[in-house]
């Protein structure tokens, strides 16, 4: 899994990636800079669950959020949530492609 995560954080501007279960527990993570992984995992799991409930989604879905100081990319699958946090100005297309591929590979590993 670390190999998949290393590939996910390899593009310039990617700060870290997190594999989280639906309860907000960290399965694994890898960061280039100091990020509060407990806070991130709890917030991501909470928001993902709320989105699934509000929008009544049971299948896989993705959310790409662009904020003033950085971006959050996430894919929510049945077993886990894969999240990547980046700085602004990152190559979003490349990150999204890697995220999709990473989610597929991690699903196979799990």
């Amino acid at each position, binding site marked *: 899994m670390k190999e998949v995560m290393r590939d996910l954080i390899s593009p310039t501007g990617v700060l870290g990636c997190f594999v989280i279960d639906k309860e907000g527990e960290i399965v694994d993570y890898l960061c280039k800079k100091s990020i509060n992984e407990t806070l991130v995992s709890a917030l991501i799991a909470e928001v993902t669950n709320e989105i699934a409930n509000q929008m009544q989604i049971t299948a896989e879905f*993705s959310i790409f959020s662009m904020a003033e*100081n950085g971006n959050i990319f996430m894919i929510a699958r049945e077993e886990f949530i894969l999240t990547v946090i980046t700085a602004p100005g990152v190559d979003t297309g490349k990150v999204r492609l890697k995220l999709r591929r990473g989610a597929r590979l991690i699903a196979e590993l799990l």
Partner: protein
Amino acid sequence: MTQDGLQSDASSLDVLISLADLYVQNGLIEEAKGLLETAIEQNRNIAEPYFSLGKIYSEEGNREKAVLLLREAEKIDPKNQNIKELLSSIGEEEGLEKAVEEIPLKGVLRRELDKILKIEGVTGVILVDEIGSPIQAELDLPLDDDSTGAIITTVYNRIDGTTKNIGLGVLKVVFFELPGGNIFVFGTVSLRLIVLARRDIHFASVEGRIREVFERTKSILEVD
């Protein structure tokens, strides 16, 4: 020549206003109003078309609409005596709230949102405020625009809270890829523009056009 022909050929503001005057002199009031609304859309920072349209409404006895337009004209050109005198003559204090609900704001907003709805694969556009209260919606889907707008705004605000907590600052754009289709949301402090699209519509292919409309919408509503 048709009015449409004139509107597209005569881009100059002076021509539009002169022609509107001519229409008024010949009793073609609705045609004159249409020309002046176009003139306002194309020249939002010039007082004259607001004044001319306000004058028409004033002469029709529709003082609410007249006051709304003349107030806009006065904001742009506060020293203009003609505007002040007309406002004074019709009395500007009453009925303003009612007027805000009406022209030309609704029509202008609808035309802007329609530009997004015309993009291939876009199935709906909803404009709401920061708490999800509806401002305008144009949908090609059998959805309740009020509740759809409110749910998506709730979710957007939740993500906004998360980006702030993580230290990424205020959320600007969210793109949802859902099993039933894609949703793009552009936000500011007080506005959310929600675009519903088919699953095969990629964000990069429509982002520029949606962003342009969003910027114009902010300008029309004078927010953020």
